[in-house]
């Protein structure tokens, strides 16, 4: 309990001190609201607009979640195909890695042209695409990078390829899948916000932030930023909880691999 307190206390103290210093700096240096809003003002805005912020969070969060689930399913399916047919992997993997390196969410501008102006589909497609590549690259690695000793062992048991897949490749890929989820959960949220900057319905957190800034309601914009932070954090936390619930022996397994 004391050890846990020791781990948790320093970041909390630092966070509180940082916010206090921010508040004080706005007062002492008389910073104008259009330059930087005081945390107390932001909090007021947050408390007053709770239902609006919640509604916007729900819209962006749903887009992120739908994309995250679709991208994960597609990524897993494709990685199985790639590990099964090596030639396919040789063709697609370099492409996937290259695509992953460029900010592909600008594609949402193109996708917006394909659907009606109020459609959420382009944003969800965008999230799906981003998540898909992260999951694909990681899970494909987990399915193929199996210890040679373990493969030789399975061959010595005359194990058919289907048994090797089920008993070696898939379990080996599970930590890679969770790593992919930990990366792609926050990425899904970010992609969902940024997608909103490229037009479409003005109902999500991303578009609320821009419209409030456009109307010089900076404290309100910050309140939506706070909502965005909480949403990203929630996605990340859920991905960690899912990992520790699904992994026998918890996180130790990935850090303490035996020979």
């Amino acid at each position, binding site marked *: 309990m004391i050890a846990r307190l020791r781990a948790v206390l320093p970041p909390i103290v630092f966070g509180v001190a940082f916010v206090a210093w921010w508040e004080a700096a706005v007062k002492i240096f008389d910073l104008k609201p259009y330059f930087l809003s005081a945390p107390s003002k932001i909090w007021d805005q947050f408390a007053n607009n709770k239902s609006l912020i919640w509604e916007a969070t729900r819209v962006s969060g749903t887009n992120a979640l739908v994309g995250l689930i679709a991208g994960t399913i597609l990524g897993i399916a494709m990685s199985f195909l790639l590990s099964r047919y090596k030639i396919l992997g040789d063709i697609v993997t370099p492409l996937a890695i290259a695509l992953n390196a460029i900010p592909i969410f600008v594609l949402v501008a193109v996708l917006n042209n394909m659907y009606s102006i109020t459609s959420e589909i382009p944003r969800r497609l965008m999230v799906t695409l981003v998540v898909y590549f992260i999951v694909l690259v990681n899970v494909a690695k987990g399915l193929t990078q199996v210890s040679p*000793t373990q493969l*030789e062992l399975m061959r*010595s*048991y*005359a194990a058919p390829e289907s048994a090797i897949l089920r*008993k070696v490749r898939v*379990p080996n890929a*599970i930590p890679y899948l969770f790593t992919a989820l930990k990366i792609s959960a926050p990425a899904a949220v970010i992609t969902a916000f940024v997608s909103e900057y490229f037009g479409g319905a003005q109902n999500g957190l991303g578009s609320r932030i821009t419209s409030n800034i456009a109307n010089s309601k900076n404290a309100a914009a910050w309140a939506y930023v706070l909502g965005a932070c909480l949403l990203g954090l929630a996605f990340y936390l859920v991905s960690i909880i899912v990992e520790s619930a699904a992994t026998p022996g918890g996180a130790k397994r990935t850090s303490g*691999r*035996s020979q």
Partner: protein
Amino acid sequence: MSTVNVSNLNKIFNKGQTNQVDALVDVSLSVEQGEFVSLIGPSGCGKSTLLRLIANLLEPTSGDVVVAGKSAKQARLDQDYGMAFQQAGLFDWRTVSKNIELPLELKGWDKTKREARAKEMLDLVKLPEFSGHFPWQLSGGMQQRVAIARALAAHPPLLLMDEPFGALDEMTREHMQAELLSICAKTGTTVVFVTHSIPEAVYLSNRVVVMSPRPGRITKIVDVKLDGQRNESTRERPEFFAAITSVREALRAGGGHAHAGAGVEDR
């Protein structure tokens, strides 16, 4: 009947290409039931290749391998041998028990039978209290014991081992050697054992097969004249040293060049 019979075996890698390697040339060897035979030689002498040919993990270029009276392939399909490697190769996501049960699962055994056998094997390797542990919670020596238990789980007549104690420290290694001998005495398993270490080969084996590289071949087979019961005092007996000397001399003679025996440890 001999458990392993290898006759006029040749293995050439990359045949006809510039990087052709004559891994094994005209190798013949037979291992009797219940015998413990070590393969020793410098790196590149083909001892691991020979082991993998017996295991049917590699196909010979020419020649015959007969294991337990069948072709090597049929013996592999029937799981007539168990195998252990330098790396324990345990599966991190399976408990110790479940690791040992793996070969039995692949044979289609039912759960109760598997669990009973895993328990029996854990008793045999003296780790009964670790059945529910995960591999990363065990020391290197314990992991290797689990690997041996797994290799013997289906009660195969033959155990093939590729430097299984190579990654262990000297004390653990000697302890594991004694354990292995007692396990084999209890089960009557025939063993083919690849090693770099002369004392290890002599301590464990009825016969030590000395091999030399370029091309890989058997240069001499040394009979170890130690009686059945081997223990710590065995390592101090004159017959032990005599066998070590003859293996070392065979290694030197087999190389035919100044660096003969390079890569073979004297410990």
